[in-house]
């Protein structure tokens, strides 16, 4: 989008003003994530740059808050809980979501719009409402304050992402491939695992990553239905920020930013791979 040669002075001004504005928005988007990284190495329990930090004095930086994080039994326990809940709910979401997406992509399915509406409703309903409802219902079933309750809740919140990504992948799916496999003597199961699965796998995995991220980041429902024993990392952060925000939070935040970079790269890689496989050239 270079400036056209016929541009007048006013247009030139707008062109640069526009670019500067966009640059500022990008700074606004990314700087909060970058600023916490150096702050998490602060030797002092402050949230601002000390003079020593600005002078790049090595003594002003330390791994103190990271030591506190890795040495804390509470935080380590929280990591373990988050891991258990996230992995279980992601696997469940991937299985249930993929099956449903396969059904939804068939033209014979009746009431498709209504079913889709129900399946993605956890995405539309505000979390605080889901949390309150789940608190009432799961308590009456006796599964609040348990791993099972939290896993089921996070699965419900994560499946819409799998349904949407896999349905999108299937929208470009050529069913002749399955017919070809069948005509060559493959059983439906064999054709499913050898033909369908490899083609939709990228969609399943990126949907799964969304579900994973939902569970890892989810705090509202967790506050309401998890007990002290199931305390997850977001719950621990929530408690930490509410009580007295210490730079340990920033150390955790930095680690989480690293994790999101990792997840983002994986999802982007999968998206491009899927486009290549399905013959959609990036444009």
């Amino acid at each position: 989008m270079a400036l056209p040669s016929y541009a007048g002075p006013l247009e030139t001004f707008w062109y640069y003003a526009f670019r500067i504005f966009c640059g500022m928005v990008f700074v606004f988007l990314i700087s909060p994530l970058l600023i916490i990284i150096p702050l998490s190495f602060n030797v002092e329990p402050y949230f601002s740059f000390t003079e020593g930090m600005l002078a790049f004095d090595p003594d002003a930086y330390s791994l103190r808050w990271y030591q506190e994080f890795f040495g804390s039994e509470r935080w380590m326990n929280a990591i373990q809980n988050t891991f258990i809940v996230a992995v279980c709910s992601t696997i469940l979401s991937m299985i249930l979501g993929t099956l449903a997406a396969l059904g939804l992509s068939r033209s014979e399915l009746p009431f498709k719009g209504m079913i889709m509406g129900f399946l993605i409703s956890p995405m539309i309903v505000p979390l605080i409402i889901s949390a309150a409802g789940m608190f009432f219902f799961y308590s009456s079933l006796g599964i609040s304050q348990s791993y099972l309750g939290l896993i089921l809740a996070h699965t419900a919140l994560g499946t819409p992402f799998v349904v949407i990504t896999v349905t999108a992948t299937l929208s470009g799916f050529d069913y002749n491939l399955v017919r070809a496999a069948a005509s060559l003597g493959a059983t439906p199961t064999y054709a499913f695992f050898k033909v369908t699965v490899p083609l939709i796998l990228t969609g399943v995995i990126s949907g799964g990553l969304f579900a994973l991220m939902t569970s890892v980041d989810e705090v509202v429902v967790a506050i309401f239905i998890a007990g002290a024993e199931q305390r997850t990392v977001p719950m621990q952060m929530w408690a930490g920020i509410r009580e007295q925000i210490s730079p340990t939070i920033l150390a955790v935040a930095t680690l989480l930013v690293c994790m999101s970079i990792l997840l983002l790269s994986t999802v982007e890689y999968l998206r491009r791979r899927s486009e290549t496989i399905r013959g959609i050239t990036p444009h």
Partner: protein
Amino acid sequence: MMATTVEAEGQLTPEEQKSLTADMHRSLRRKKIRAMLLVAPLLIFIMVTFVSPIATMLFRSVDNPQVSEYMPNTTAALAHWDADSNELPGEETYAALVEDLEVGRKNHTIGKAATRLNYEKSQMRSLLTGTARKAGRLKPPYKEQLIKINDGWGDIDNWRVIKRESKPYTLSYYIAAFDMETTPTGEIKMLPEQQRVYLQMLWRTVWMSVLITTLTLILGYPVSYLLASLPMSIANTLMILVLLPFWTSLLVRTSSWIALLQGQGVINDILVWFGLVSDDNRLSMIYNATGTVITMTHILLPFMILPLYSVMKTIPPSYMRAARSLGATPFTAFFKVYLPQSVPGISAGAILVFILAIGYYITPALVGGQTGQFIGNMIAYHMQSSLNWGLAAALGVVLLALVLGIYGLYSRLLGGNNQMSLR
């Protein structure tokens, strides 16, 4: 599977036609069942783990068991009493009350009924629990003794409230959620101005969500336009700056804004260093509405940019060039040609951001202070602190109705294609 033979002319006999149609129907039905079987596990799962909880909440918002369950004799006795009669209930009602109070005190259940009645009329709790402590020592006849213990029992309005709330279902939580009250005579009227809380809170939630949506649109539209018009390789790189915040934990972003905006935080330090703000007069940008708006605008901005970008990607750049070549100024070309085509992206992004914003709870709770709280925080407060679950449920239903109403309106306006895609 079909035993029909086709005659030389290719004509089917009527019987053959019938059996062929039946076979086709059977095959179609089988396919339909197979598709339904694939969807069924998730549908059942969502029904149980998600839809039932929401239904439970709906039920909770009208459920009213406390009085009838924990004061059964009084409830039964009051059924025969005419609340409009301007006469106190008879002795048998007072006797029933004494029995209920005594049982309730022993089983520690009278407090629940007392709390429930207190939502409707203050001092009902102390009236019930105070009398319950003395009820065991009373001998019949009770009526005068009870009025002597607490003259509240001689107040006909208290009896009217008990009778009204002894019904198993109530709308009183909704009445409270709309800042109204039921007078003892059964009229529903608005609370005095200074006691109104929820409507104001709901209104604030809506207008702050509108403000946040507008801000994300103002910031997001130019950026999406830039991303959509840049060459793919550069756009993909810049896209990382949008996607990274999108993938980063909400709590991380909220805590980094706390670090940035607080009194001793980075932004105030910079402003002081530049001499724009004096050291003892630092800006309070957090723990108020400003903090909520800034933080939520940052958190929700990617949700505006992504749908806008995906729509703008489909607008051919040649249209703008054509408009220019026909003599349009850049502004006319933009407003007449580009903007109308980007409307689907604007509406998708705006509705997504608005729906997400209106239900927010975590960020306002952490950075909102007094003035930046949302209706979601009120629901959480009644769930966790005041334990008025009925009111929390009613507020939840009001919020849910608002969200579904907006979503429904949006999908009605935009027709069938209403799926909010992630990309």
